[in-house]
């Protein structure tokens, strides 16, 4: 089987050796009710209510949703609409912290004896796909009985440049990742559990190998350190050789892909009863004075994270939430840390591409390296013509938005933005 090699993007894993440090409790946290894919949570607190760390503030609206818990102790200041990751408005609970970080008394470890209770516990922990997609984990793990589950693949590839929060989870939180894997093995009963790690993280591979070797049906799969190994369909193909059909789910080929930090979080919840209230965020980039891995309560303004890391240099030009390939550039530092925020990057002016796009020279590099085997240059033409039939023909709905095409384009065409908008256009035309 020929593995999907992907492309070589500079790794820039400057913070791989840095143990996460907790930042001081922020004065105010903003908790959007939608930090995940699916329906937003429904606020269950009123303005003026006292809340403590771990207390439920937003109730999940159905199964394709996730509850939100307070990340600080303090008073609910307001329930407001704030900007989301692309500028859309999201209902958010703003909590003024009292600095005491008192833990909510009602937190008890859930009793887990069967699959249903396990899924309920995962749902209640508020955990969503922490790698960036934000799909509610409990719903992801709910597979139909007809599905023969062969593989659960724990995604430790972390192929995006700069980000090291998953690496630190596998090193510092290795026990929780392993316990989470054991829980998955016990309740979902897959034939095999594989943890896929890129070979530029030897420490994480060592830690995981040590633990995985003790149990049958668990193994570590070493992946080439080339982007985008962590894309779920690429990971499934590179680990199992199976190809997910168009429009199909991973369970159609008997696989589930789940992020390693996600696994650690619900294992921690089942052990202690503490839901997802904080996460490790990699703060890096050429305009950050001292890059670090920090443990930040959810809802902390990203500006405070930069301040904690020595502030920003004067020539900062671009701030990105997420990795440089798939993350979103944001206009200010008031936006909060979300469940899916695995990194925030500040890039200097000299490193920001400012050249204007030129005409496509039909070199075919985008097509050659597309992990989904799409033809981005053709899709761009179809997008400019607003031709829905052509977009369907070129299967733009298969695009994983990995940005390989835009990264490689010598004409600097904004291909990844074209892909995102084409998918939206196709969705609107339905």
């Amino acid at each position, binding site marked *: 089987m020929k593995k999907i090699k992907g492309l070589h993007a500079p790794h820039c894993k400057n913070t791989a050796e840095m143990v996460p440090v907790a930042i001081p409790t922020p004065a105010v946290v903003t908790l959007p009710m939608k930090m995940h894919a699916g329906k937003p949570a429904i606020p269950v607190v009123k303005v003026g209510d006292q809340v403590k760390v771990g207390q439920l503030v937003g109730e999940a609206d159905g199964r394709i949703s996730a509850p939100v818990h307070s990340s600080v102790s303090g008073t609910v200041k307001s329930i407001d609409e704030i*900007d989301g990751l*692309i*500028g859309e408005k999201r209902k958010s609970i703003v909590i003024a912290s009292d600095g005491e970080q008192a833990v909510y008394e009602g937190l008890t470890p859930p009793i887990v004896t069967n699959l249903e209770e396990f899924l309920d516990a995962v749902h209640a922990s508020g955990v969503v796909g922490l790698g960036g997609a934000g799909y509610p984990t409990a719903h992801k793990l709910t597979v139909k009985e007809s599905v023969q589950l062969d593989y659960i693949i724990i995604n430790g590839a972390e192929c995006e440049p700069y980000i090291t929060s998953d690496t630190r989870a596998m090193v510092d939180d290795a026990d929780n990742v392993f316990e989470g894997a054991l829980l998955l093995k016990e309740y979902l009963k897959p034939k095999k559990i594989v943890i896929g790690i890129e070979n530029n993280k030897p420490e994480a591979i060592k830690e995981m190998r040590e633990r995985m070797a003790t149990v049958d049906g668990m193994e570590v799969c070493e992946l080439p350190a080339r982007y985008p190994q962590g894309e779920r369909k690429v990971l499934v193909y590179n680990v199992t050789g199976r190809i997910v059909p168009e429009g199909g789910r991973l369970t159609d080929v008997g696989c589930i892909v789940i992020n390693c930090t996600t696994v650690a979080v619900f294992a921690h919840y089942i052990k202690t009863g503490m839901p997802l209230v904080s996460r490790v965020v990699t703060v890096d980039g050429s305009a950050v004075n001292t890059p670090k891995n920090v443990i930040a309560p959810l809802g902390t303004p990203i500006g405070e994270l930069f301040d904690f890391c020595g502030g920003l240099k004067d020539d900062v030009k671009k701030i990105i939430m997420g990795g440089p390939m798939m993350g979103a*550039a*944001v*206009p*200010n530092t008031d936006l909060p840390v979300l469940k899916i925020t695995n990194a925030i990057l500040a890039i200097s002016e000299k490193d920001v591409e*400012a050249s204007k796009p030129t005409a496509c020279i039909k070199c075919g590099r985008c097509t050659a390296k597309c992990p989904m085997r799409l033809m981005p240059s053709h899709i761009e033409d179809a997008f400019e013509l607003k031709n829905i039939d052509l977009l369907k023909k070129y299967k733009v709905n298969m695009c994983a938005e990995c940005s390989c095409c835009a990264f490689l384009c010598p004409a600097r065409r*904004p291909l990844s*933005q*074209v892909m*995102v*908008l084409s998918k*939206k256009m196709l969705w609107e035309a339905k």
Partner: protein
Amino acid sequence: MDNIILFAVTSVTVIGAVCAAMLCIASKAMAVKVDERIAKIEAALPGSNCGACGFPGCGGYADALVNLPGTKPNLCPPGGAAVAEQIGEIMGTKAEALERTVAVVRCLGDRDALQKKMDYTGIPTCYAAKEMFSGEGACAFGCLGYGDCLLACPNEAIHLHNGLARVIPSLCISCGLCVKACPNHIISMEKESIATEVLCNNIEKGAVVRKKCGFGCIACRKCAKECPADAIAVEDNLAVIDHDKCTACGHCAEICITHSIQKMALKQ
């Protein structure tokens, strides 16, 4: 030699004559009856194929008028009352007069008035910028300034001035294509008789609007209080003029603190 030439000329002439006769007979015998009104109506229509009537082009509308009973004769906004009357004559019905409408861009936030929040270097269209924090300007409700409406206009009635779309009322053919093209929905078709209009869409609170744009409606309610005809109401932090009640005195435009209410001169 002479014979060959004569033979060729004669035979070709005969074949030609026979074919011509056959075609003549066929054109009479197999003729498809076309209502001559369709051609007349098509001639009367402006022919810009803008699609504002809701039919595929002027031909489609002419066909629908004749073959689809109940199609109104006054659906052509570019043609206006004159064309509606002509169609009425051809069809033998009476057309109700329709007031001409003009596209109005409900925003005054050009580059000088609107605060900038970021540099946008992506695809330079409004559709793309809308998905990226609503473009460079601080206001998420205003003109994005990349000219999607300008490309949609079939009559070059819209131009960009300092990052703000502007309509030239005399060139507007009322087709409404710009209304559909604007991703922020800030263009609307207004009757040409309106005297004043609120040129702002921002529904945020006044203090927030003030920080973002010099021409934003801050919902101070001054216009609503002072309007002699009681035609202005403030809904969702935005003044709304009821044009049925409006007496066109123009007082609101004179007293508006932020000048977001403007006098309109839309007539040709």
